[in-house]
């Protein structure tokens, strides 16, 4: 069976890391696209395999112009199945590969303070009004954080993850990454009531989907 790590653009050489289950990495060309794959003996999702996949993708990032990471999924039965799956999406994949070229993904998680229980509402209407105000304040806070960061990004993906958690991935050009991180720090300083967590730079995992907004 064949496990796919990602689609690469101008990969120098295969990185000196092992694939899932210790297998050797291989380059595979399908149409105009180049994939990095390895043979896997079994169809199993383990912690070790997931981390190995991530490590390979990370290593590919530093050796190619662009990488479109593949989602960890059930391996392909054989070459034929792999080729037909990739061929069916080839033009879309090429387009996405171009879009992520020269970019990294930065993840942001904003946790807003949980709504305080506040004074007992006198009536149902008052309660609803208070809840609505709270909601508005929160979305305004999030917008204040998101907007300056989205301006630095080529694309964004994701959004609200819960009532007081906001999660978004930003596709940022390499040269803008440090400005992005500085901006996160400034926003955190300006909004001590929020908890901002920024992770990255990641390979552009969140920007493989055609519907990335």
């Amino acid at each position, binding site marked *: 069976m064949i496990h796919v790590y990602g689609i690469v653009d101008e990969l120098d050489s295969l990185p000196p890391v092992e694939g899932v289950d210790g297998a050797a990495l291989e380059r595979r060309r399908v149409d105009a696209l180049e994939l990095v794959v390895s043979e896997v003996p079994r169809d199993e999702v383990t912690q070790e395999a997931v*981390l190995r996949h991530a490590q390979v993708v990370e290593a590919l990032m530093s050796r190619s112009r662009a990488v479109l990471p593949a989602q960890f999924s059930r391996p392909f039965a054989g070459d034929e199945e792999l080729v037909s799956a990739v061929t069916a999406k080839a033009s879309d994949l090429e387009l996405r590969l171009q879009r992520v070229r020269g970019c990294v993904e930065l993840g942001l998680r904003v946790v807003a303070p949980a709504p305080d229980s506040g004074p007992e509402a006198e009536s149902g209407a008052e309660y609803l009004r208070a809840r609505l105000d709270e909601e508005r304040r929160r979305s305004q806070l999030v917008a204040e954080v998101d907007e300056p960061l989205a301006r630095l990004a080529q694309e964004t993906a994701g959004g609200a993850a819960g009532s007081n958690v906001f999660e978004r*991935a930003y596709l940022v050009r390499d040269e803008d990454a440090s400005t992005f991180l500085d901006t996160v720090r400034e926003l955190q300083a300006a909004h001590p009531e929020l908890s901002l967590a920024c992770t*990255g730079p990641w390979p552009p995992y969140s920007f493989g989907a055609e519907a990335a907004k």
Partner: protein
Amino acid sequence: MSSDLRPDLRQQVTLLELVDRVLNKGVVLSGDITLSVADVDLVYIGLRVLLSSVATLEEQGMPVAIGDALR
């Protein structure tokens, strides 16, 4: 990343983000993404396992802090 997070906690958050990306994001090539076992989302099983064993992974030199850019 908030600087007041304990380093071990920060590492765990990064790891969660990593696993979330590998299992939930990325280009879908195979139509068959069977990542649940007995109707329990494997992502969460994975996360629990991961959280309990960050220290072990570190000992093995696995990249548990990939991309922790805001140190």
